[in-house]
């Protein structure tokens, strides 16, 4: 079964249709997603700014990580759960949305950035913990994280708009390629 067929099937399940069409459940999940954004993205920004040496300069980097990371992870859990529900409510359209795809790519890159940061420069944090401006590798990780998360938020917000949707033809060939859209076969 292809992903397209799977999401087509998922979109027709009663729970997916119910969530999509609900008067309150869907907006509530959306609001939780925005609330989680403040917690997760807000604290991520503060940590990234510390890595760049732009705030909390008197606070050891490991202390900021240790105290804020549990909240950041809690925020991430809220984001993944509410985001998963939002996808589940509109699976086929999201799967074929160019903005959703851009968001997923940037999420993977942001995850990779976290992994590289923690497995490399952060391992030696004891050596630069108190530096007001951390080493270059840490600053780069912080800057990359900021750029990627801003991109993720912007593309996430754009998923709501249907400019490039498969059921809105004609689209240029490149758009239809990037959204795996075969106009004649698409069903909504």
């Amino acid at each position, binding site marked *: 079964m292809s992903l397209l067929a799977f999401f087509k099937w998922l979109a027709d399940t009663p729970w997916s249709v119910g969530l999509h069409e609900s008067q309150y459940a869907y*907006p509530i999940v*959306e*609001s939780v997603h*925005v*609330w989680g*954004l*403040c*917690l997760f*993205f*807000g*604290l*991520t*920004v*503060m940590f990234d*700014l510390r890595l760049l040496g732009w*705030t*909390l*300069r*008197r*606070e*050891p980097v490991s*202390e*900021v990580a240790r*105290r*804020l990371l549990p*909240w950041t992870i809690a925020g991430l859990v809220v984001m993944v759960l509410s985001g998963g529900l939002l996808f589940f409510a509109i699976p086929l359209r999201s799967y074929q949305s160019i903005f959703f795809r851009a968001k997923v790519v940037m999420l993977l890159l942001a995850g990779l950035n976290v992994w590289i940061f923690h497995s490399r420069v952060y391992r030696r944090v004891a050596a630069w913990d108190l530096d007001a401006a951390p080493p270059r590798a840490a600053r780069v990780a912080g800057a990359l994280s900021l750029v990627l998360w*801003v991109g993720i*938020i*912007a593309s996430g*917000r*754009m998923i*709501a*708009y249907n*400019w490039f949707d498969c059921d809105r033809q004609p689209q240029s060939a490149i758009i239809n390629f990037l959204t795996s859209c075969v106009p004649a076969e698409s069903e909504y």
Partner: protein
Amino acid sequence: MSLLAFFEWCEQSGIGVAIRDSVWLFPVIEAFHLVGLGVAGGAVLLVDLRLLGVGLGRQSVAELSEDAEPWLLGALAVQFASGIPLFLSEATKCYYSFAFWVKMTSLVLVILFTFTVRRRVTRMDLASTRPLLGRFTGLISLGLWSGVGWGGRWIGFSS
């Protein structure tokens, strides 16, 4: 001039019309508004979690809020710069939106609270001797900001 007439006048303003006539402007401004919300949220949480006794603990509250304040003010500037054009483009809808008024009421209250009570509590480090005062300050701040955020998101759901 009645309030409704004022809102209708806002909607007919050049900026409002330009945003309505554009396919991209509203969504792009919205994205900035969302990023600004996140940064403001982070700057607020940094201090409020500390006041609640569950965040950073080494520095004094005064030092921490000194670090966070430029980011809060910067984010608020982004929020006004992006939020006002968004409002201008759909002012009449806002007038009839319950969520809009929840948001504006919370916003006025939280700004008053932040720059009077909360600023006094943080700058004078009152929470170090009166932790309960700190906790209440943090809770009220977070509660009011939540009202701003939720109200704001729900403006988009009312038609």
